């Protein structure tokens, strides 16, 4: 046996691992202190306002905590404090529009959002009448979006399956390229495309809900393809091989192993795609048109959806149309949120179980 060599001294051996640090309450105290100081100064110079108070407090806080940290804890921790502050500030900035939009919508929307509004159409209602609702637009939204989903999900999902499971070489590359291009098509162009197609097929003035659905499909299909493709790629190859090794043909492997394993992600992707198109206005204006009446038939005459309804009301001017517009906007947000919850439920139910 050779003698054991003594291990080389670790760098900085003998130096304590402990280092000085600010107490845990330091950030909170500094923030409170900064806010108080800024408030006092602003009041003293007679320029107090919520905006300047917030901005200056945060600035003072960032400077103080960084300086304090630099003197007590050293450079690395000081940078950490500064960047942490920065990240929180950015998060706050990002939240402002979100909260503001929600707040404004709820505030203005609840004025008119009641069972009457949800159950009445605008038929025989004058714009300024204290009456009328969005029932026809809610139904139109559900029908037009529903048909768009019925078209887009099979097409998009099968395209994704082709790309992941079968696609090789030129054709697959071309499809990927065109899907990318489609993702970037302005929605009004999709609308005009379908409008032109309808003009060719049925002649002028033939608005119908289904035309709107087709226009929305042009926008929805690439989103479905992209998200499903990512989800199918996440399915481990080992599962496909396990299935092949049992003598299972490829198509059954896809239908019974690959799709069930990825169903949660695919569902989420579809829901995101629906959320993306349910708020479209422009392509529907030129394809489905608008109407004040209830129409359940997507294949005959005009059909209105909530975004178009909002646009119509706002463009009429006046307090009551304004309130109707916000109420419809709130309804739309609620529908999207309900769909999202539904999607979560679906993926929860289908998600692979580990049992651990």
């Amino acid at each position, binding site marked *: 046996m050779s003698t054991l060599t003594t291990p080389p001294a670790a760098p900085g051996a003998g130096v304590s691992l402990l280092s000085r640090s600010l107490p845990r309450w330091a950030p909170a105290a500094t923030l409170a202190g900064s806010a108080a100081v800024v408030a006092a100064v602003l009041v003293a110079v007679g320029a107090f306002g919520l905006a300047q108070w917030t901005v200056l407090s945060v600035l003072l806080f960032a400077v103080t905590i960084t300086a304090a940290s630099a003197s007590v804890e050293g450079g690395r921790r000081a940078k950490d404090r500064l960047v942490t502050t920065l990240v929180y500030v950015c998060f706050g900035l990002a939240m402002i529009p979100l909260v503001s939009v929600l707040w404004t919508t709820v505030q203005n929307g609840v004025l008119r959002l009641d069972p009457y509004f949800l159950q009445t159409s605008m038929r025989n209602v004058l714009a300024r009448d204290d009456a009328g609702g969005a029932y026809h637009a809610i139904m139109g939204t559900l029908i037009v979006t529903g048909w768009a989903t019925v078209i887009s999900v099979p097409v998009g999902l099968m395209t994704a399956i082709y790309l992941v499971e079968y696609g*090789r070489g030129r054709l697959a590359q071309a499809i990927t390229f065109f899907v990318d291009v489609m993702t970037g098509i302005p929605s009004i162009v999709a609308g005009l495309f379908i409008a032109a197609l309808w003009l060719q097929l049925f002649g002028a003035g033939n608005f119908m809900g289904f035309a709107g659905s087709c226009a929305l499909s042009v926008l929805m299909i690439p989103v479905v393809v992209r998200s499903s493709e990512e989800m199918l790629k996440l399915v481990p190859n080992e599962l496909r091989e396990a299935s*092949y090794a049992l*003598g299972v043909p490829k198509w*059954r492997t896809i239908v019974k192993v690959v799709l069930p*394993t990825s169903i949660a992600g695919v569902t989420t992707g579809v829901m995101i795609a629906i959320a993306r198109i349910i708020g479209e206005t422009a392509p529907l204006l030129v394809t489905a048109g608008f109407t004040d009446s209830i129409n359940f038939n997507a294949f005959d005459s005009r059909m209105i959806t909530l975004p178009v309804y909002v646009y119509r009301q706002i463009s009429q001017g006046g307090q009551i149309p304004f309130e109707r517009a916000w109420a419809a906007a709130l309804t739309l947000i609620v529908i999207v949120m309900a769909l999202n919850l539904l999607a979560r439920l679906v993926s929860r139910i289908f998600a692979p*179980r*580990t*049992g651990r």
Partner: protein
Amino acid sequence: MAKRIDVSGLNVYYGAFRAVEDVSMTIEPRSVTAFIGPSGCGKSTYLRALNRMHEVIPGTRVEGKVLLDDQDIYAANVDPVAVRGQIGMVFQRPNPFPTMSIYDNVIAGVRLNGRRMPKAELDALVERALRGANLWNEVKDRLNRPGAGLSGGQQQRLCIARAIAVRPDVLLMDEPCSALDPISTLAIEDLIAELKTEYTIVIVTHNMQQAARVSETTAFFNLSAPGKGGMLVEMGDTNKIFTNPDKKDTENYITGRFG
């Protein structure tokens, strides 16, 4: 059940790269044949060529003949899906289907193929396969729990149960124990010893003791040259290969001088 495999002049290519060079061998029924050799010498590739599993990787190509008893599995109108139904495979990492319960995993071969069977028959099949894989006693009370919730060793035995539930003639195992602890490894080795009474078993292993313990015949693969594909160096009775091999390379590998 339990068929002989006769391989002659088998070459396997990944694109232009010849990963397996001109291998010929006979694999006896109702016995265990072990493949040993350094990493990257084409054992997995060769094994997968025995049930046409390599075909799922694009760009692969095979030359040569593989006879299952008297049928050439590479003959013109042979369906690879049918071949895989007769020659099952167990993989290195346990891969139970995550969406299925233990019960459904075992009958996956039936279900995925869309075959219908009365419930009683399915129950019997599940019990038989799980008993065959020495797993029945551990899971009989939780057949409806997810297969992915078992330990690694149990998962691997579940995969073996799944493979034998379709009643193949041959079972190919690619390093089935390399992801498992010693206790689970012993359980699988015991299982292999029982299964060989009914099946033709081929096992790839990096563990010499394991090859010596479980197999009747051992085949030693090696790279034909650095950067080239693998070839069969020597094949014979396990005792002979481990005590008195004909080739110097085999002896060096077995005594741990390289690889």
